[in-house]
């Protein structure tokens, strides 16, 4: 069997290909992006013509996967944690429909918010949707869970959630691969009403799903991914979920814990196994990256004085864990004497030199100086960095698409002018519906769609807005004379000031599209062209 060096994300992608995947559906989002990119670049995936084009957003991705499953084939959906909020409608209903071909939903959580606006824990979503879940502790487990996960999905007629965190997504290690399986054949569901969630059918499906829970728990009780590792000192037991297992054993010589350990990587929680484990130990420390999901369940409503974790203050309530935090919770003394010198400055990320967004903000800042602070609602993308010095240009960033709708709400409240600043890819992800709201009500709003023709922040993936932004806006009902397009360059500064002034003065919906390609993707294109010559 071959061994290869893979990122956690790449191990997931390779496992899906090896397990007979027919299509991956995703919208880029750190730290999940590399899963889909790996499949897009895979030779075998190309030969097999596996679907791997980006979706418009996570909801369209999830629904397309359900459609592929309906047709009998295996599908995977990948997203970052907040993407699951967008996909939630389809996600929660996907356990009610069940599957025909297997579905695995991979969600990459970002505890410590390395590149995100919150650190929500997707295990709650899995629990909410009554979906079996995997949480790998290493790259090999991620591979094995995807590989066998499709079988479990088909066996129990349910999608599977695989939850990883940033650390595993972006950590590389060697992985042993399994033999490549053929794709499923095209095949309609045996019950043609399975995917019709009319109340009468949905009630029936839901009862089946509830009835299946006992089998999901059984799988977790007997899973090779959940195990008790004996330890002599039963004064303490440790429940380690997913990657926290690594942080735990890092603290012991030869990685052998003196305390019994329950390693938990598959859900719903195996209650028999955990009851036995908890009864056996005087105290139990729970390690989990994200929210205290397991800790809350074991505590129950009335608490359990044996249990220690994030809720008792033995571990921090927020942020990702690491070996040092686990050492502290275990009472292991460490000598960390060296302190960071105070001569060091912070080096926050910044917009790239030459970036078109900078030119747009320079014009916008000049115009907005007349109105005072607090009028610019922005969105998720590279341009969010303009909230920091030196630009200090925007006043909000909440979720994908919220720039337009927040500006609308503020305009409705009477805060004028109301400016929305959004990127091209974010606009097609979740901005179009908000624009339609504005059109219907003729809201006095100025929307700037700063078009760099790519999904920049995640590394330059294709944007669905490419070459069709004006048509989308006109189609939704933007008046042609209030759709303004220009090239954001220093030499066009006066033109951009004039356009901004005129459109802010207009008491209806204006869309301004400054259009210039991302300097990074341009640089890459020039380089690869040179290489060809």
């Amino acid at each position: 069997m071959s061994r290869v060096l893979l990122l956690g994300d790449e191990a997931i992608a390779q496992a899906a290909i090896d397990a007979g995947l027919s299509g991956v559906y995703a919208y880029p989002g750190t730290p999940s992006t590399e899963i889909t990119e790996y499949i897009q670049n895979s030779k075998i995936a190309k030969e097999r013509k596996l679907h791997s084009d980006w979706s418009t957003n996570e909801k369209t991705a999830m629904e397309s996967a359900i459609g592929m499953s309906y047709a009998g084939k295996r599908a995977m959906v990948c997203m970052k944690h907040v993407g699951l909020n967008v996909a939630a409608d389809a996600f929660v209903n996907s356990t009610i429909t069940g599957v025909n071909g297997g579905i695995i939903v991979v969600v990459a959580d970002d505890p410590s918010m390395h590149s995100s606006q919150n650190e929500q824990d997707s295990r709650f979503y899995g629990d909410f949707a009554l979906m079996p879940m995997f949480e790998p502790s290493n790259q090999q487990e991620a591979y094995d869970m995807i590989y066998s996960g499709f079988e479990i999905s088909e066996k129990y007629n349910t999608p599977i959630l695989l939850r990883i965190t940033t650390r595993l997504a972006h950590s590389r290690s060697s992985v042993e691969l399994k033999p490549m399986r053929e794709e499923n054949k095209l095949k309609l569901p045996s019950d043609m009403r399975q995917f019709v969630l009319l109340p009468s059918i949905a009630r029936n499906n839901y009862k089946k799903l509830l009835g299946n829970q006992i089998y999901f728990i059984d799988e977790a009780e007997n899973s090779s991914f959940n195990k008790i590792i004996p330890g002599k000192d039963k004064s303490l037991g440790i429940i380690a979920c997913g990657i926290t297992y690594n942080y735990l054993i890092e603290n012991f010589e030869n990685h052998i814990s003196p305390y019994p350990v329950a390693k938990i990587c598959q859900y719903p929680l195996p209650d028999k196994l955990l009851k036995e484990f908890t009864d056996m130990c005087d105290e139990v420390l729970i390690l989990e990256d994200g929210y205290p999901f397991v800790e809350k369940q074991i505590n129950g409503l009335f608490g359990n004085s044996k249990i220690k974790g994030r809720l008792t203050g033995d571990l921090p309530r927020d942020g990702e864990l690491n070996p040092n935090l686990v050492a502290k919770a275990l009472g292991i003394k460490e000598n960390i004497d060296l302190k960071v010198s105070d001569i060091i400055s912070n080096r926050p990320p910044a917009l790239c030199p030459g970036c078109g967004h900078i030119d747009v903000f320079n014009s916008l800042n000049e115009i907005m100086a007349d109105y005072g602070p607090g009028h610019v609602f922005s969105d998720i993308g590279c341009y969010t960095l303009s909230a920091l010095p030196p630009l200090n240009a925007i006043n909000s960033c909440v979720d994908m698409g919220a720039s337009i709708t927040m500006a609308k709400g503020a305009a409705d409240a009477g805060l004028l002018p109301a400016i929305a600043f959004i990127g091209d890819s974010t606009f097609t992800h979740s901005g179009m519906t908000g624009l339609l709201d504005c059109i219907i009500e003729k809201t006095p709003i100025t929307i700037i769609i700063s078009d760099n023709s790519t999904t920049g922040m995640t590394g330059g993936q294709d944007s669905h807005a490419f070459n069709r932004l004006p048509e989308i806006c006109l189609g939704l009902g933007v008046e042609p004379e209030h759709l303004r397009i220009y090239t954001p360059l220093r030499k066009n500064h006066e033109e951009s000031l004039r356009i901004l002034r005129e459109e802010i003065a207009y008491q209806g919906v204006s869309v301004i599209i400054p259009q210039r390609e991302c300097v990074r993707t341009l640089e890459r294109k020039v380089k690869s062209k040179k290489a060809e010559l």
Partner: protein
Amino acid sequence: MKSDIILSGVGGQGILSIATTIGTAALMNDLYMKQSEVHGMSQRGGAVVSNMRVSSNPVASDVIPMGKADLILSVEPMESLRYIPYLKPGGWLITSSSPFVNIEDYPDIEKVKEEIRKYKNHIIIDADSIAKDIKSARSSNIVMLGAASPFIEIEESLFIKAIESIFKSKGSEIVAKNIEAFNLGRNYSLQNKK
């Protein structure tokens, strides 16, 4: 053997090419390894760090615990100091001397160097000039790898083999330049370590 290496620099400086070379050499030596990277937001000219762990025994944590790194290898001097709490007592701090100034409040470079010299085990090397001298400015990171190599328990010949395998597609001249860059960095450290 065990080498826990903190690799640091600024987004865009290409620290991952160093990690890839060490990783390739480690695999050729049948060693276990884990390497964790930073993607996404910080890549936009911000501080970036990668944790490289190579060992003859299985590696547990994907991140190096504070106080346990054998060396900090930095392609930027101020960034070499950012991760100091990770260095173990007696660990080595190896850094390029060329500051990457993309912030307004970058400290006085002499003060940065003074701070680095406070650690007995340090190497400050002008990797950019060394690479330029051999007319291969892009090999600066390989000079840095060479400078770190005496402190990593992997045979010199395996690093050379790794460089050959990584650069082979770019032609024999590029391979030769990078091997030269590696040797110059390595010799500098061998002469300057006390």
